[in-house]
């Protein structure tokens, strides 16, 4: 591992030293860059690049948790994963969660930000109230809502006078996780929207008012277009975060897979394969598949952004 870190760091370091000795004059101040990035790159190489490379290697082996008996088995892990109904189910659960959470959070965060932006008193108070849940650890949010959704002793059913088996019925279990997540994380996107709203120049609205635009027109023709970039960012961040959902889902189901295994997410499936079944090789193959999915989403976003910029030109 040490060697891998050094090979990554060595080129800039050697280059910077050589260049620093050779150059004189104004440019000199801009040399030695290697030393600035070296500490970060060392950590980055050890805990990001190396695990990634190691994961790729392990995914072609039948390694167990102690790393022994790492026989090379080619694409067998990948072939098995693609035919593993459990993998597809857990991927489906994460995707379903993402599909529900992302639109809800985006709309909710926007509405909350509009509300907080337009109330003239106590701005800090609304900010505090809407952001507060985000400051709780995910496990605390999970435990709290597990308690709220508890049939009988929980407040949710009591307040609404219903009798829904939130945590024990497969049609509600993931919905309960979604509601928990909305309450817990909407504050972050809310603050992004609030900041963006405050950044819209006031003279745009004044000009529109002069032209006789009503509140609805101002919203559709000024506010929404001005918020397009932040909306793109909120959606992208939420997709990436939601695909990686784990904490709330397992906490709310006492670290089990949920009723009829309906809340087992992709991360949970990977960890089960690695740490419960001790199949590190197989878990690594699933991790690499997951990495490819995340990378595809991120690249798709970059591609969309570039196309839009070109379209605007």
């Amino acid at each position, binding site marked *: 591992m040490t060697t891998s870190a050094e090979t990554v760091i060595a080129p800039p370091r050697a280059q910077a030293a050589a260049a620093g000795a050779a150059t004189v004059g104004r440019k000199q101040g801009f040399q030695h860059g*290697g030393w600035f990035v070296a500490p970060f790159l060392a950590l980055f190489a050890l805990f990001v690049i190396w695990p990634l490379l190691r994961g790729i290697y392990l995914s072609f082996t039948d390694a167990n948790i102690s790393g022994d008996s790492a026989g090379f088995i080619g694409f067998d892990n990948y072939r098995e994963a693609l035919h593993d109904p459990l993998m597809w189910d857990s991927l489906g659960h994460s995707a379903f969660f993402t599909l529900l959470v992302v639109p809800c959070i985006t709309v909710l965060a926007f509405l909350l930000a509009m509300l907080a932006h337009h109330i003239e008193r106590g701005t800090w108070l609304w900010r505090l109230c809407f952001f507060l849940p985000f400051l709780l650890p995910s496990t605390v949010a999970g435990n709290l809502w597990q308690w709220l959704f508890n049939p009988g002793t929980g407040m949710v059913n009591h307040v609404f006078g219903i009798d829904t088996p939130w945590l024990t019925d497969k049609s509600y279990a993931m919905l309960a996780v979604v509601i928990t997540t909305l309450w817990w994380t909407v504050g972050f996107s809310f603050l992004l929207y609030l900041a963006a709203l405050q950044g819209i120049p006031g003279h745009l609205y004044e000009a529109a008012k002069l032209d006789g635009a009503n509140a609805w027109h101002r919203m559709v023709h000024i506010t929404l277009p001005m918020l397009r970039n932040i909306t793109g960012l909120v959606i992208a961040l939420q997709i990436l975060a939601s695909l990686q959902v784990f904490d709330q889902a397992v906490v709310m189901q006492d670290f089990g897979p949920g009723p009829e295994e309906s809340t087992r997410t992709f991360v949970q499936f990977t960890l089960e394969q690695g740490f419960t079944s001790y199949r590190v090789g197989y878990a690594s193959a699933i991790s690499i598949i997951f990495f490819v999915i995340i990378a595809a989403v991120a690249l798709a976003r970059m591609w969309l952004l570039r196309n839009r910029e070109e379209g605007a030109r």
Partner: protein
Amino acid sequence: MTTDAALIRIKTRTRKAWTPSQIVLTLLGVAVSAVFLAPLAWALFTSLKSETEAVEVPPHWLPKEWTGQAWKALFQTGNITDWFVNSLVVSVCVTAIVLTVSALAGYGFARTEFRGKNVLMGVVMAGLMVSPAVLGVPLFTTVQQMGMVDTYWGMILPQCAPAAMVYILYKFFQGIPKELEEAAFIDGAGRWRVFFTIVVPLARPSLAAVGIFTFIASWNNFLWPYMVTNNPDLMTMPNGIATVMNSYGIQWAQLMAGGLMAGLPLIVVFVFFQRQIVSGVAHTGLAGQ
């Protein structure tokens, strides 16, 4: 509202006036806030009930008999003080290391030249997509090989290479006018001296944002400490509460008290640093554009 003078007058007056629309909006704000705070109030009231009262059916908001028994038991029986100290040690170390290495790297990438810079920058950006959730198992086996399972270092170091923070600071450093530095170079100051005496003070708001967000993320991090620690004495707050307290059969009043304890430090931090956090969200969020 058609002239500047009118605008100013209206602005100063509306601070005091309760127009009908403001009354409606404020009432709406109060209602929404009540919904947001109700779960927290429920947790607080539950923690002040006895364990038997906490599980009564049907549930009720206020304790019939107020008792601090759950809070007392929390400190007497649990490892809660250990977990608190562990969380503090881990979060402070992570924040300090992240601030140092990402400020240096952000500056290095933004303002210095070295061979392979663009390629390395691309690799770092690709690292944005790797997290313990995505590559947890290979990361665990790596840390295991280093013999860092169930150690502070094992919890701390893997959280210390956040490409996102480097990117945020990189964007910020790119915006600093080069002339500021060049003047200092001409006066004979070295690269490091310029960095510490000119660049770092200028970057204080960005560094504050990065620091606060790293601290929040690290304090609330569950997944990585969950993977890398089995020893209850080494667990952090979110971990100990979720895994150890649950495993003894759930005592809800105590669990809620523990949860509030775990959330309290960040709530205090937020109340004191609200302005920095809000501008930090704005800044870091917009930097991603």
